[in-house]
C-alpha cells in the first residue's frame, strides 16, 4: 500500500509542494537563526578561545568576562607563579586602544599584549608573517578584518604602519584571529610594547595566563590559585562560558533571536501541521473506503507516517541545503566570518522536524483511527 500512500501524497502538487516548502522554510529559518545566534554568541569569548597555550586565566575576583578588566598588580604574576601545581604563568594585557592609519582613518582596536619571552597568547592562525616577528621594534600583528578596514582594497602585506598613542605601529603579520563581538580590529603585540601603545595606567596586567604542572588538573590548580592569591582563576572553557552568559544576561540578543526562533518554530509547526492535517482530512473519505475494503488501521497509520516522513524528509533536506548554501556564501564575508552552520544545529533541526511532522501525523492519524468506515455510505 506504500505506493498508494505516495501517490495520494503527490497527486495534489500544489498541496504537496506547499507542505515541502513550509517545512523547508521553517527548517531554514530555524537553522539559520540558531547558527547565527551561536556564531554571534561565540564572539564575546573569541579572544579567550584563541589563546591555546594556556589553560588557566587568572584575574581580579570581580571580573565578569574578558571584555571588562580591572588590572592586577604586577606582583600578582609572581604570586601565581609561586602556587604549587603551576607549571608556568605569564602576563597578558587586554585593552582597547585607538589606531590611526596614514590617511587619517582611525578605529578603536582590541590590543593584546603577549608575554615578550614566550609569546604565549600570540595568534596561532597566521595569514601572513610570523609571530616571531613581534620581536621587532614597534611590531604588531593585525587581524585580516582590521587590515581590510585600514587598508581597503590593498593586498595583504606586512610593513604597513599605523599610529597608536603617537607611536608607530609596524604591521609584521596578518592573523586570522576570531571575530570579536564588536567587530573591532584585533592587534597582537608584545606585553612591553602594548604599554607604549596605550595611555599609561598605574597597572596594566589584565590577566595572568597559567599552565598546570604535569599531573595536575586545571580545576585543582584554579582552586589552589584562588586559595593562595585571592584572585579569580578560570579555565579557558569556563571563562568563555562567562562571556557567553554575560551577553545572554545583559544584552537583548537572546530575546531577539529567541523571538525569531520561536516564530520559526511556531510557523514551522503550525503551517505544515495544519496543511498535513487538512490533506488527511480531505482524504478521509478515501481512508474510509480503504477501511471498509479491509485495510487495517495499522496499515493506514503506516501510510500516513510514510507520507509524513517523505514530506518531512524532503522539506528538511531542502531547508538544510538552502542553509548550507547561505553559509557557504557568507562564511568568507568579513563581517560574518566565523559564523558557520554547526552539525549539531543540523541534527537538532532534524529532531524538531521529526517532532513537527510526528505531531501533525498524530493529529491526522487520530482523525483516521476514529473514523467510522460507515462514512463511505454517506453520499
Amino acid at each position: 500500500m506504500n505506493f498508494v500512500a505516495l501517490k495520494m501524497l503527490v497527486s495534489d502538487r500544489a498541496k504537496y509542494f506547499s507542505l515541502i516548502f513550509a517545512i523547508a522554510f521553517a527548517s531554514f529559518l530555524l537553522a539559520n537563526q540558531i547558527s547565527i545566534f551561536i556564531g554571534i554568541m561565540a564572539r564575546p569569548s573569541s579572544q579567550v578561545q584563541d589563546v591555546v597555550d594556556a589553560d588557566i586565566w587568572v584575574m581580579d575576583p570581580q571580573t565578569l568576562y574578558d571584555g571588562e578588566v580591572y588590572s592586577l598588580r604586577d606582583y600578582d604574576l609572581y604570586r601565581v607563579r609561586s602556587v604549587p601545581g603551576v607549571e608556568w604563568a605569564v602576563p597578558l594585557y587586554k585593552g582597547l586602544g585607538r589606531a590611526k592609519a596614514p590617511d587619517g582613518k582611525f578605529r578603536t582596536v582590541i590590543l593584546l599584549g603577549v608575554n615578550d619571552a614566550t609569546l604565549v597568547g600570540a595568534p596561532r592562525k597566521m595569514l601572513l608573517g610570523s609571530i616571531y616577528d613581534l620581536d621587532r621594534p614597534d611590531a604588531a600583528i593585525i587581524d585580516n578584518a582590521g587590515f581590510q578596514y585600514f587598508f581597503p582594497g590593498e593586498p595583504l602585506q606586512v610593513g604597513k604602519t599605523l599610529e597608536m598613542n603617537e607611536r608607530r605601529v609596524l604591521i609584521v603579520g596578518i592573523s586570522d584571529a576570531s571575530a570579536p563581538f564588536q567587530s573591532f580590529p584585533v592587534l597582537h603585540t608584545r606585553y612591553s610594547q602594548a604599554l607604549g601603545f596605550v595611555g599609561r595606567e598605574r597597572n596594566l596586567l589584565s590577566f595572568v595566563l597559567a599552565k598546570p604542572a604535569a599531573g595536575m588538573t586545571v580545576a585543582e590548580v584554579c582552586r589552589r590559585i584562588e586559595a593562595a592569591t585571592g584572585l579569580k582563576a578560570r579555565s579557558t572553557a569556563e571563562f568563555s562560558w562567562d562571556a557567553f552568559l554575560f551577553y545572554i544576561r545583559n544584552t537583548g540578543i537572546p530575546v531577539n533571536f529567541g523571538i525569531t526562533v520561536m516564530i520559526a518554530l511556531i510557523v514551522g509547526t503550525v503551517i505544515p501541521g495544519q496543511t498535513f492535517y487538512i490533506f488527511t482530512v480531505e482524504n478521509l473519505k478515501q481512508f474510509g473506503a480503504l477501511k471498509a475494503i479491509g485495510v487495517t488501521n495499522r496499515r493506514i497509520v503506516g501510510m500516513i507516517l510514510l507520507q509524513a516522513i517523505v514530506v518531512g524528509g524532503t522539506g528538511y533536506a531542502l531547508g538544510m541545503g538552502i542553509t548550507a548554501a547561505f553559509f557557504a556564501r557568507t562564511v568568507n564575508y568579513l563581517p560574518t566570518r566565523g559564523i558557520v552552520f554547526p552539525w549539531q544545529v543540523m541534527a537538532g533541526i532534524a529532531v524538531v522536524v521529526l517532532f513537527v511532522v510526528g505531531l501533525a501525523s498524530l493529529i491526522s492519524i487520530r482523525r483516521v483511527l476514529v473514523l467510522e468506515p460507515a462514512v463511505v455510505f454517506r453520499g
Partner: protein
Amino acid sequence: MATDGIAVFSRDVTKVFGRGETQVHALRGIDLKIRLGELTMLVGPSGSGKTTLLSVITGLLDATSGELVVLGQRPAELSQEELILFRRKNLGFVFQQYNLIPALTAVENVAVSLLAGGVKRRQAVARGEEFLEILGVAYRAHALPSELSGGEQQRVALARALIHEPRLIVGDEPTSALDGRTGHAVMELLRATAVRPDRAVIIVTHDARIFDFADQIAHMDDGRIVSLEENQKNGALTNVFATASAAS
C-alpha cells in the same frame, strides 16, 4: 448455525444511535434472510434505515441487539481485527460516489482490494486489468478517476468490488449518480458479473428503474422492513411478506 444457501440471516436486529432524549432508533427489529445466488434490494424513503442496515450487515456498524449471521459468521463475536479481515476476504463494496482514490489510475484503484490483502503490486495490477477487460473498461485502465465518466467510474468501482472474489457484494445507491441508460447498463453488468450461486448481492437503492434486476426486494420504512417481495421468473413481483409491525 445452519446457513446453507443463506448469506445473511437477521432476527430482531436493532440499531440505536445516541442516548436519552436524543436517541434515534435507526433499525427496529429487522428479520431478513438473504440467499446466496440472489440479488436483494433494500428500498425505501430516506431515513428508513436502508444504509444503516447495510452498514450493520457489513460490520461497519455494530447492531445494538438481535441476531445477525453473515456468511456463517456473527459479526458481533468478531474482534475489530477479525472483522476487518472478514470484510477484506468476503465483502465487495460499490459506493454511490464510487469512492475511487483520485490519485490512482483505474487499474490501480481496482488493484487496491488485492493490495490490501497483501498481493504484490504487479500481480494485483495484472489482475485488475483482467477485471477491467471483463467489465468493458480496459481501454481506460490508465486514466485517472477524474478523466472517467460516471458510468466508467462505476464500472471501475464494480471491478474493485469483484476482483478479490468476495461472497457478498454490497452496493449503496450504485446508480443514483448515473443517468437512466448508464444506470441500467451498470446494473446489467452487475447482475451478469456479480450474481453467482455462491455469492449474494445487496443493493440499497431509491431507483425504481432498476427494481427489475432484483430477486428480492425489502421495502423499509422507519427502521422496519414493511414488505418483502420476490421477483418471479416472469418479472412480476410477489409480496411474500407484509409486516403489521409497521402499524404497531
